[in-house]
C-alpha cells in the first residue's frame, strides 16, 4: 500500500441477494484516496456509489449483501476481512460518515451534546467534563450559534441545516483520518447547501481530514473535489483530477453527464444533449461495456467485451474502447469543454 494513501479500494465486488436474484451492485471498483484529499464519487442512482461507501464503513447488511471479491485497504488492514470487534474501533474514530438525511441519522431521543460526546468517551476515553468541553468546541467549530444552550437540545429542535452541522460535528469529533460524506447536501436547499459546502471546505483545511464525497451533483464536485471518480452501473468508467474530468473528459458517459446539465452561466441557446435510454439492470449486467447501449460512439467490440482501464495521463484513467489504438478517433463534443462556448 502506497504510503501517501489513506485508503485503497481494489477490485471491489459487492452483490445483494433479492427476491429477483443477485443484484451486482458493485462490479470491480478500484480507486485510492491520498492524505488530505477530497475525492468525489459521482454517478446516478443505482451506479453503486453508495454501496461502495457503505462497504468501506462495513455498513452493508449481510445478508442480503455479500462481499464477493476485492480489498479495501485502510492503514494496511483489509476492512472486508477485519473482525467486527476491530471494525467497531475504526468506525467513528478513524473513519466517520455523514449521511444524506440528518433527521434519520441522528438519534431523536438523545441530546445533540450526548451524541457528540458518545464517540469521544468511547474512542478517545475522555471523561464526561472533558468530553462536554470538546463537544462545545465542535459545535462552535461547525458554526452553531449559542452552543452552550444548543448542546442540551434534541435533534427535532434543530433546523435542517443545523442538523447537518451537528451531524458533521459528531463525525469530526474524534478527528477521523477519513470522512465519508454520502450526499451530504442533497436534502438541503441551495442556500443551506452553500453554507454546508463552505463549512466542509473550511474544516478540511483546519483538520486535515481526507474526504470521500458521494454525490450526483457535478456542481458540488467542481466546487469541493480534488479528484473525481465517475461510476456507472457498478463500475468506475473514468477517474482523474477535477480539472481533467471537467476540461478534458475522455469517457462518453462523462461527456453525456456534462451535456445533459444546463449551465447557469451559459446562454440558453445551448441545447441539452440527453443520454438516451436508461442504465442497465444489474440483475443481469451486459457482458460488454455497460454504457454501450446508450453510447453514441458504440462499436461492435463494446457489446462483446468490457474495456480495460487505461492510463490517459499520470492521473487520469479511462475504461473505454475508444482509447484502444485501433479505435476511430472521436472528438470530445467541443461545447462541453470548460465552458468553451462562453
Amino acid at each position: 500500500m502506497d504510503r501517501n494513501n489513506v485508503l485503497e479500494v481494489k477490485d471491489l465486488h459487492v452483490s445483494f441477494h433479492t427476491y429477483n436474484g443477485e443484484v451486482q451492485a458493485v462490479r470491480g471498483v478500484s480507486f485510492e484516496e491520498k492524505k488530505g484529499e477530497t475525492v468525489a464519487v459521482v454517478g446516478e442512482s443505482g451506479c453503486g456509489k453508495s454501496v461502495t461507501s457503505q462497504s468501506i464503513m462495513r455498513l452493508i447488511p449481510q445478508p442480503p449483501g455479500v462481499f464477493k471479491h476485492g480489498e479495501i485497504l485502510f492503514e494496511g488492514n483489509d476492512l472486508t476481512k477485519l473482525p467486527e470487534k476491530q471494525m467497531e474501533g475504526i468506525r467513528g474514530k478513524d473513519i466517520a460518515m455523514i449521511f444524506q438525511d440528518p433527521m434519520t441519522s441522528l438519534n431523536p431521543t438523545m441530546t445533540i451534546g450526548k451524541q457528540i460526546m458518545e464517540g469521544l468517551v468511547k474512542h478517545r476515553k475522555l471523561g464526561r467534563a472533558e468530553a462536554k468541553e470538546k463537544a462545545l468546541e465542535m459545535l462552535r467549530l461547525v458554526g452553531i450559534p449559542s452552543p452552550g444552550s444548543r448542546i442540551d437540545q434534541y435533534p427535532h429542535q434543530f433546523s435542517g441545516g443545523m442538523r447537518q452541522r451537528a451531524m458533521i460535528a459528531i463525525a469530526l469529533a474524534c478527528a477521523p483520518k477519513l470522512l465519508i460524506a454520502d450526499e451530504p447536501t442533497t436534502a438541503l436547499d441551495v442556500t443551506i447547501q452553500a453554507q454546508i459546502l463552505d463549512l466542509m471546505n473550511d474544516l478540511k483545511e483546519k483538520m486535515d481530514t481526507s474526504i470521500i464525497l458521494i454525490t450526483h451533483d457535478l456542481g458540488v464536485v467542481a466546487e469541493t473535489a480534488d479528484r473525481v471518480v465517475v461510476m456507472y452501473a457498478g463500475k468506475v468508467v473514468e477517474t482523474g483530477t477535477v480539472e481533467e474530468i471537467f476540461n478534458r473528459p475522455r469517457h462518453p458517459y462523462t461527456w453525456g453527464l456534462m451535456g445533459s446539465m444546463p449551465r447557469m452561466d451559459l446562454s440558453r441557446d445551448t441545447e441539452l444533449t440527453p443520454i438516451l435510454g436508461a442504465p442497465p439492470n444489474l440483475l443481469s449486467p451486459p457482458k460488454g461495456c455497460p454504457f454501450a447501449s446508450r453510447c453514441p460512439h458504440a462499436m461492435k467490440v463494446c457489446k462483446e467485451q468490457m474495456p480495460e482501464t487505461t492510463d490517459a495521463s499520470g492521473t487520469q484513467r479511462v475504461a473505454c474502447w475508444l482509447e484502444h489504438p485501433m479505435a476511430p478517433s472521436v472528438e470530445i463534443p467541443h461545447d462541453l469543454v470548460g465552458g468553451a462556448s462562453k
Partner: protein
Amino acid sequence: MNSSTQKMTPEMFEPVAKDTLAQEGVASKKITFWGDVWRRFRQNKGALLGVLLLVIIAVLAIVGPDINSYSYRATNYEITNQETVGDHWFGTDGLGRDIWTRTWYGAGISLLIALLATGFDLLIGVPYGCISGYYGGKVDNWMQRIIEVLYGIPNLIVIILLLLWLKPGIIAIALALGITGWITMARVVRGQMLKLKSQEYVLAARTLGASTRRMLTKHMLPNVLGPVIITVMFSIPTAIFFEAFLAFIGLGIRPPQASLGVLINDGYQVLQLFPYQLFYPALILSLIMLSFNLVGDGLRDALDPKLRQ
C-alpha cells in the same frame, strides 16, 4: 481484468448502427400487481403451510361429518366416553356422540361464524372508513368521535346484551361479533384513505376532473384492498377465538349444535377423566388460529410495498 486473450480485429471497432441503440426497454415479462404479490407470497414457506392447513381444515369441515356414518346429534348410550372404538376415530362423548363428526361440524360452524362476522366488519367498517377518510374535515372529526365513544364501551357488554335480545344462533353471534369488530377495519381503511388522498396519482385524477365515484372505485379502493385483506386475515382468528370464549361462558351455540368453543367447553368439564374429548377440538382450533396468522403474516410481507423492487 485481462481480456487480451481474444484477438482484436479492426472490424470489431466498427460503429454500431444507431437505431439499435437505446431501445426503450421494460422488464421482459408482464407482471401484474397480484402476480407480483403471489411471487413473493410463494416464497414464504410458513404462509404456504398455512394455506395448505386451511384448505385441509376447510375441506374436512365440509365433508368430514359425512365420512363416517354418524350424525352430529345421534346419541348412543352404549358407547359413552369411549376412546377410539370402531370408526369413532376421535372417540365418543358423554352421550355417545361421535367426536370426529362433531369436531368437524363444529369447525364448520366456527368458521362460518367467523366469516359472517368478518363480512359484517367489511360491510360496516369499509364504507365508514372510506367516508371518514375521503371527506375528511368536519365529517371525519364527528365520525372519529363516534368511534371513540363506541370503542370505550366494553364489547363484552354489548355482545351479552345483544345475545340476550336475539337468541344465540349462528347469525346472532356473528352479528354480535361484527357489530363490535368493525371499528378496527374502519380505522385501517380511514388511515389508508388519508394517506392515498395526498398521493399524486389521486391529485392527478382530480385535476382531470374525475367524479367522486371514479376516485373511489378506480383510485382509492383498489389501493386499500391490500391492508383490508391483511386486516381480514387477522380478524378471522380473533372472531373464532371470541366465539369460543362466548361458548365457554355459556353464550355459545345451543346443543345439539356445536361449535369448536362449545366442544372445548364440554371437553373441559371432563378433562380429568377423558382428556381426549378436549384435545381434538382444541387442536383444530389452534391449527386454525395458527394458519390464519401464518397466512396473514405472509400476505403482509407480500403486499408490503417497501419490499418491492
